[in-house]
């Protein structure tokens, strides 16, 4: 498969900051690529650069074979870009927004009716097509924005945190749509702050301070986590957390609701030790086990390592 997006030492400077710092990335046709990283890591700037919305300061980038420094406009008919903030016309109706973008993307008039209907169904917005965009819920606005970026059937989708601020059900619906598009062969680059979403991507790039510090399949990234995760379900979890996080070999302690996730150097060695301490301190626990590492742990441990 040839690379559909290719960047080499891509740099973008703003007045005082270097938002993207030497990004080298190659994305193949048909990938569902997740861009993760803490706030301010450069995800939005990267997507804007790839969409041709910002000038490149240094380095090279090509999308669909078009050099972005020379021919940024040539890629526009082939990409669908969705900004992080809501950026449709709030005083226009759902249908009018769709038609507006259809006309700008030169969708042929004869295809218009069929395509808008299909996208409205796809996004579950058929019954709201006359409603003004400003009166839609956050989740519906995101789905409308996605529908607008899909109106010209682009080869590449660039989505900037499309599910931020959306309720869990809408979030799942949104990802079902993305998965369907992915299965149909659309190349998707999506930035997300949610690790469960990163887990659904075919490949994940972790950005930190403008650099791509890790780029692999979710499975490989999880395996790169050095050590194991121990999950404890304790009664007095706050006290338990205090006690166990100070123990030797514990690198990280996080809580998920009432369960504690400990990142330790070796699960087999540390599990009996922790059990012993909990019993000694009279801390009741319902269960303790070695759990499979998730993206979240891998992500946090990678970021902590970078920050140190």
């Amino acid at each position: 498969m040839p690379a559909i997006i290719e960047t080499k030492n891509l740099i973008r400077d703003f007045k005082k900051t270097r938002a993207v710092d030497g990004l080298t990335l190659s994305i193949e046709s048909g990938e569902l690529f997740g861009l993760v990283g803490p706030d301010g890591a450069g995800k939005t700037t990267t997507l804007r650069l790839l969409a041709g919305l910002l000038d490149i300061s240094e380095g090279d980038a090509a999308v669909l074979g078009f050099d972005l420094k020379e021919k940024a406009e040539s890629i526009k008919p082939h990409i669908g870009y969705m900004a992080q903030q809501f950026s449709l016309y709030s005083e226009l109706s759902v249908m009018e927004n769709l038609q507006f973008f259809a006309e700008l993307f030169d969708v042929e008039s004869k295809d218009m009716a069929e395509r808008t209907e299909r996208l409205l169904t796809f996004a579950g917005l058929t019954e709201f097509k006359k409603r003004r965009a400003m009166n839609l819920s956050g989740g519906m606005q995101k789905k409308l924005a996605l529908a607008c970026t899909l109106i010209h059937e682009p080869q590449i989708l660039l989505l900037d945190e499309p599910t931020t601020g959306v309720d869990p059900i809408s979030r799942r619906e949104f990802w079902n749509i993305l998965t369907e598009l992915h299965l149909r062969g659309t190349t998707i680059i999506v930035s997300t702050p949610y690790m469960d979403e990163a887990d659904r991507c075919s490949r994940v790039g972790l950005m930190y301070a403008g650099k791509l510090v890790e780029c692999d399949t979710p499975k490989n990234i999880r395996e790169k986590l050095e050590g194991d995760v121990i999950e404890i379900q304790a009664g007095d979890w706050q006290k338990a957390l205090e006690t166990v996080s100070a123990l030797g070999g514990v690198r990280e302690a996080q809580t998920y609701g009432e369960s504690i996730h400990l990142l330790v150097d070796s699960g087999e060695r540390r599990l009996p030790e922790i059990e012993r301490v909990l019993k000694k301190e009279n801390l009741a626990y319902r269960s303790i086990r070695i759990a499979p590492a998730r993206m979240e742990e891998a992500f946090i441990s990678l970021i902590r390592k970078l920050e140190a």
Partner: protein
Amino acid sequence: MSLRHIWAVTRKEVNHIVRDRSTLILVLFTPTLVLLLMAYALTVDLKNIPVAVLDFDRSQTSQAFIQQITAGQDLDIYAYATSMDEINAMLMRGQIKAAVIIAPGFARDLQALKGIPLQVIIDGTEPESGNFAVEHIVQRAEEFIDDALTKQLRAQGIVIESLQPLDLRVQTWYNPDLKPRNALIPGLISMVLGFPALSVALTLAHEREHGTLEQLLATPITRAELLLGKIVPYIIVGLFNVIIIPLLSIAWFHISLNGSFLLFFGLSAIFMFSVLGMGMIVGVFMRTQAAALALSFLVLFFPGFFMTGIFFPLASMPEEARLEAMFLPGTHYALVTRGIFLPGVGMDVLWPYAVMMLGLGVVFMALAALFFRKKLA
């Protein structure tokens, strides 16, 4: 250049204006409202200026003189003062704008044909009222003295028609009553028709602020298509105003349109094109609506006030300012509106202004398209 793209943007822009009633009213009627306001505010006839009189002479002649200068509505006698202190106090409190002081011996000196002492004090904090009072008093005093002298000469058996050696006959053409409004309103029209340009200046910044520009820049629309699509609705708004504003001037202010309305409409359309181009340049450079608004006042209205010759004659400006004024469409359009309204001139006289406005419009539009980049920063 895709007409479909332009039309899509125009339609969206029209929906944006029409669906918010306050935006609609503001965009459509601001020029009318501003014209009404300014026409009334700027052409107030001065009258009933309060003055005080201090008469040290207390003669029949001085009484007659006081009556002469205060007859009519121009000056009102606020008080007869008895001392300078009183006059001072009244001026300080702003109760009077001028004081007339008649020295002792007024009647005697007039009789003896000697220099007649007359003192007028005016409040310099309000020069318009003060100057108006002085002019009025001087004129009436001259008349009074003329009368007195003629009577005296007649008593000595000398009959003359007039003491004025110059037989001056002034004819005022085009605006026979010299009503300031007749000259001001056509000039004001050129200013208030600049308002649609303000809306244009704001429209790009509005998209930037609301984030919609980001989505728009990600589409294949070209820069020229976007700018043209955005300008079309405001050309329509402008032409709507080009029709209602002369009607208002004629029906409400009774200003006669002596030239051709069709010519006025045509040249106004050219003016709209160039002034909207100016607004577009502002919109291209300013990132926020607040900044666009501020710059619009700086480049669209401020020079329109002082440099286009509406209020201050171009001829009395320094050369640099006159040269600068040539680059403002309003300068040429003010000459066009006055020319068509008052003397009723035609294209034979107005063509240079039409050419200048058209040229400026083309340059402004080209600059706007050149400097507008399809990038976010």
